């Protein structure tokens, strides 16, 4: 074990994947110069300029023009014909430029060609929200892609998960979209130095509890954990679950937990309407209604665009206070019963 940042863990996973398999190539804007800090040397959050390039050469480190549609499309074509590309799309807002390739090609290809193709390609993008970058750079678009059958959606929330899930994504023969929250880039954690993978569709129980289940996504995970800490002092026992992958989703872990606690709060940094939280709430309402002792609560970003001013932006995303309030409101009935 060693202590690594979230960003360093991504870099380490990329290096290991490149070393393990010659078919792995990295494609993206400014990957040669390691501008985003994930194509540098082992475990460093930001290595000396361009050292992946020195390690693996320009044949496998493909610096691109600013052409998202062909970056995504060519990675798909390359994956169909023998490579295993990792595409760095930098900001997640830029995925929209290549929507046709994601939705019409990556997601439909294997299906509509009757299983002839497999598409072992990983698309990484960073969600730059919370950094006062305004509406054009603050998107959290994973729920849009959850709505597209054929894509796998990964939302790592810790350095350990960032490394293990990325390695699993490279091993997957299907197109995988990884959404990395910049809010988490600097978080440090214990990460094995050796290679490991984390299977998709297996949620992580961040903290066990008995009164209420909080399913938290991406940067909401540490916020939910902090809220649980605080609520424990108030005598409320919170179970925090991080699904880690949204497609496939570990429905059973969520249903089992709600079965024990009888209450559900979902904390999701995406916009409220048709969010991951909406989907998780629906699953629980459909399949575990009898277990519920209180209405489900969603803590999400409201359906507004992201404003620039720090004073405006900071109130929008799910944070510990809002999550704690939601928990208090769903356990209110229990507290009443006791008092």
């Amino acid at each position: 074990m060693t202590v690594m940042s979230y960003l360093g863990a991504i870099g380490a996973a990329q290096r290991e994947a490149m070393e393990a398999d010659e078919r792995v190539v990295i494609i993206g804007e400014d990957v040669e110069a390691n501008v985003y800090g994930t194509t540098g040397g082992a475990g460093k959050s930001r290595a000396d300029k361009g050292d992946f390039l020195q390690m693996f050469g320009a044949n496998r480190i493909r610096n691109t023009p600013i052409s998202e549609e062909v970056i995504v499309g060519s990675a798909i074509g390359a994956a169909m014909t023998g490579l295993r590309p990792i595409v760095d799309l930098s900001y997640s807002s830029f995925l929209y430029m290549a929507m046709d390739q994601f939705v019409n090609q990556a997601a439909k290809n294997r299906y509509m060609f009757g299983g002839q193709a497999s598409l072992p390609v990983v698309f990484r993008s960073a969600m730059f929200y919370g950094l006062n970058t305004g509406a054009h750079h603050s998107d959290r678009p994973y729920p849009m892609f959850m709505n597209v059958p054929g894509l796998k959606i990964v939302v790592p929330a810790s350095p350990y998960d960032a490394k293990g899930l990325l390695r699993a994504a490279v091993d997957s023969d299907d197109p995988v979209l990884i959404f990395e929250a910049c809010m988490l880039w600097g978080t440090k954690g214990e990460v094995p130095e050796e290679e490991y993978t984390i299977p998709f569709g297996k949620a992580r129980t961040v903290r066990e509890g008995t009164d209420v289940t909080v399913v938290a996504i991406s940067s909401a995970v540490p916020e939910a954990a902090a809220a649980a800490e605080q609520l424990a002092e108030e005598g409320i026992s919170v179970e925090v679950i991080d699904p880690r992958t949204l497609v496939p989703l570990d429905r059973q872990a969520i249903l089992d937990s709600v079965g024990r606690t009888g209450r559900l709060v979902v904390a999701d940094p995406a916009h409220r309407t048709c969010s991951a939280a909406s989907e998780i709430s629906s699953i629980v309402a459909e399949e575990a209604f009898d277990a519920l002792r209180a209405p489900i609560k969603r803590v999400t970003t409201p359906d507004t665009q992201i404003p620039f001013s720090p004073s405006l932006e900071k109130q929008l995303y799910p944070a510990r206070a809002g999550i704690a309030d939601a928990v208090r409101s769903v356990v209110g009935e229990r507290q009443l019963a006791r008092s």
Partner: protein
Amino acid sequence: MTPSHDTLLEMQRRMLRIRRFDERASKMVKRGHIPGTVHTSIGQEAQVVGAAMALADGDYTAGNHRSHGHPIGKGSPLGPLMAELVGKATGVCQGKGGSLHLADFAVGSLGESGIVGSSIPIATGAALSSKVLGNGKVSLAFFGDGAANQGCLYEAMNIAGVWNLPIVFLCENNQYALSTPAHTVTSGVIADRAAGFGMPGVRVEEGQDVLAVFDAVTEAVDRARRGDGPTLVEVVTYRFNEHSEGLRLGVDYRNADEKALWLEKDPIVLFRRHLVAEGIATEEEMDALEAEVLAEVDEAVRFTDESPFPDPSVAFADLYTDPTPGPSVDNLIGATA
């Protein structure tokens, strides 16, 4: 290099296969035997076959909605293609692609696309693969004059240029995008656009002459295989049928004189005349070839007729390589009730 005797006959055979296959498909659409619609390549066979046969067997193609000719030109057998058009289990895509989404990986056909322009980046990626793996394969993207105005073509030409990829961008200029004449929506000459990307741009005016297309594309393929990078080839041709079968537009966007002029330039008639005049084949041999191809199409239809429709569970197969995240046949319960 002049093609061998066998190659010349094979060109005619593949053009005939496309013609007879598409004629049959057109009939089957009209009789309701093929669901949905199909876009035929009738009239464009020289362009399709000249390009496809300039490639080697292992080379890649990706194409568009005018889709049957590309895999046929690449040598794909007709039975599974026809079965796919009808949605049978034996279809080349197990009945899940249909006319718009044929793919036959066995002959390097990476798939046709219903989204205009969308397959161009895919072909570019196949060329990237060849380059990284050093396997010597060339990739060819088929697209229409309409698609030539999609932005992704220019993203693809730029990246193929800077990465020096082994790819041919093949514009099938049949002069119309549905009802829209190319010259009314296209500024300048398509082939000239190559210059902006530092690559050769070739315009084949005699697009009804299979050898003219073959020569131009062969040069582009050789160039790609030598490691000298991409080429844009624009072939001027004409579609004899409507944009899609069964489509009846109230407006006549192509006048009768123009149509008559192009019908005179039927690529199959022209090439047969050439083969006989050059002493490459006799009239009898040409008749025999026509009969042979007709029998192949009959056989493809018989194969299709005798094939079952897919099991309902197939609707849930192959969304992913592993079954974990997908829905199952259980989801049909209620939906069909």
